């Protein structure tokens, strides 16, 4: 049976995002996904303990973000100097070197977007656990899903690895806590987003008490 309530009076229709084929909504077992009969695209999925998982993993991601901004990603010793790499440090270095747009893109894709995603997820899902919708939850959910394609945490992590390989030739470099915390952010956010189906989240928001 479907573990989440459908909004009352709902026509219970579902249109495939890829080919627009109309389906009548039918409940699926936990862990089972409904796919489009025509193109095989995912319609919705019934995920186990969805709200709990989404809230827990996004809370973990938020806590790890504190570590990410407190500790460096890389620590480099060269020419009797010690330099640390942080997200904001990389962005401000670019801004000071006449590349404000590049600096802003680092802030946007690795600081703002992950924060919008994890913050939005917990803001929407935590009250939903108690059957309530937080004030402005629709707005938060909308912007959370809009920011999703711009989240580049994993890309930045690979960038750190590539840079490390460039730097080992000129300096003594090692990983800092920030790098591992950011890897944790990546895993937690992936788990949080995979934890709850988009259709389920919006259905729950619609039936929740304000």
């Amino acid at each position, binding site marked *: 049976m479907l573990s989440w309530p459908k909004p009352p009076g709902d026509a219970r229709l579902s249109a495939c995002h890829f080919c627009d084929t109309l389906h*009548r909504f039918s409940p699926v077992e936990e862990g089972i996904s409904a796919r489009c009969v025509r193109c095989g695209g995912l319609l919705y999925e019934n995920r186990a303990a969805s709200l709990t998982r989404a809230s827990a993993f996004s809370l973990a991601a938020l806590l790890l973000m504190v570590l990410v901004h407190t500790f460096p990603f890389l620590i480099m010793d060269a020419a009797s100097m010690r330099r640390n790499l942080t997200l904001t440090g990389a962005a401000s270095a670019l801004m000071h070197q006449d590349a404000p747009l590049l600096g802003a893109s*680092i802030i946007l894709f690795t600081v703002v977007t992950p924060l919008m995603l994890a913050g939005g997820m917990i803001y929407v899902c935590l009250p939903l656990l108690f059957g309530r919708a937080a004030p402005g939850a629709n707005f938060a959910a909308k912007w959370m899903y809009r920011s999703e394609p711009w989240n580049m945490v994993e890309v930045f992590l690979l960038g750190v690895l590539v840079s490390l390989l460039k730097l080992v030739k000129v300096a003594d470099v090692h990983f800092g806590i920030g790098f591992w915390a950011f890897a944790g952010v990546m895993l937690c956010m992936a788990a949080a987003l995979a934890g709850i189906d988009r259709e389920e989240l919006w259905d729950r928001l619609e039936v929740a008490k304000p």
Partner: protein
Amino acid sequence: MKQPIIKASDHGLAGCHTCGKVSPVELGRCPRCGTQLHLRKPDSIESTIALMAAAAALYIPSHLLPVMTVVEIGVVTPSTIIGGMMTFWRSGAYPIALVIFAASILIPLLKIASLSWLCAAAGGWVHPSPAALGRIYWFTELLGRWSMIDIFVVGILVSLLQLGNYMAITPGPGALAFAGVVVLTMFAAMRFDPRLLWDRLDQMSAAAPPHPTIPES
């Protein structure tokens, strides 16, 4: 199992881009989340082509101009993306050279090529199988972000290698052009409406099913 298929747009219904709720398109906005409702994304092919053409134009300077300039003990060395990749290749770091090749050279080109192909198919100029097109679209959306890796590498190196007179790195104009390529191709992929591919297919196999029914999902 062959079942007659009906589409939401045949009934004037639109699935919301944001929340997925199916509502009559004449409501204008989704009653659940307030997003504008469209049967199909407006001017999808035109805006995809425009954004893609801009990205293709920026792709050339992004590889010709230096992405960063290394000043080492007074010696100024501009470095392009391809130059950086060649350095890794010559020093024997083949996996890293391949990662840079894939992320910076191959993925933007593949993205531009596959979006052109999708636009051509949606416009009816070519007739490939829709299942293959669906895979191409999925792949295009998934891989686009990885090209950003070079911009991040420039940011990281500029931030770390500020060693006074000994060594300093400054970002070059190629980096901005390359970031432009990535962002423009991402917007182009978002503007594309895959449902147009299936509309084209239905138009071509015009034989309408006698009794359309809504299939159980």
